[in-house]
């Protein structure tokens, strides 16, 4: 295992994803942590409902993306610090993942993806027999 077990991927591999040509407005900020059994990716996507969000895991790459229409308001903004729009973030996980066990939860505008490690890469406690 290398020291960097997850790394950023811009996701610009040609033809690897049908949404790669979509306009990307922002890249959600994330935390990534690892425990003995799993990785957790926590992404901030305020204002995004489950209907506008997709999470994919394919060939060791986790992709979080969505398309959100920007709110049209008739009134002129007095202060404007953020925009609604499309978002996308791709992350490569180098450890083998049990793809069937991946769980994603959305709560208070934060997406939490749990990626369990495949049994083969989890640390195993070896029982010692007394001879």
């Amino acid at each position, binding site marked *: 295992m290398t020291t*960097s*077990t*997850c790394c950023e991927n811009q996701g610009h591999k040609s033809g690897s994803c049908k949404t790669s040509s979509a306009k990307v407005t922002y890249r959600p*900020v*994330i*935390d*990534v*942590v*690892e*425990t*003995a059994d799993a*990785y*957790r990716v*926590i992404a*901030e*996507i*305020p*204002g*995004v*409902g489950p209907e506008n969000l997709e999470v994919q895991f394919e060939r060791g790459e986790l992709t979080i993306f969505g398309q959100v229409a920007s709110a049209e*308001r*008739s*009134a*002129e*903004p*007095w*202060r*404007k*610090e*953020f925009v609604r729009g499309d978002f996308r973030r791709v992350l490569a996980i180098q450890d083998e993942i049990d793809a069937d066990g991946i769980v994603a939860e*959305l709560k*208070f*505008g*934060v997406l939490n993806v749990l990626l369990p490690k495949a049994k083969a890469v989890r640390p195993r406690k070896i029982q010692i027999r007394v001879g």
Partner: protein
Amino acid sequence: MKTTRWPFESMGADVNRLHDEMNRLISRCGFDLVTPPAFPRSNVWVDAENVYVECELPGVKPEELDIELLGDQELLLKGNRERGYGEEVVWHKRERNLRSFERTMELPVAVDGDHVKAEFNHGVLLITLPKRAEAKARKIVIKS
């Protein structure tokens, strides 16, 4: 009675207010923000009846958020965001800026504090503040 405040007590709020004001002026000129805005990032707009304040508060539980109206033209938001990932973890990325926050925002016009509504949806707070009657535009009849 005139009260004297400890000079450093309100400095955080004053610095935030100055920061807000500079960001507002810069964004009005059509440039991108030079520095990241204070947390929470906020949009404010006004129509004939109301002032609307929309804030991005990902990960904030509604019960951990305080909204206060200071006078009738200033809003204070404060709260807490926590990670809670446990201690036995290896960090690979740490981009979320989680800490307690406090932000004071000037409102464009005076509002009626008795009829403020707040909704929280997917980590976005929308506050609707009705304008005070004297702040609403009045049509002036021109006598011929």
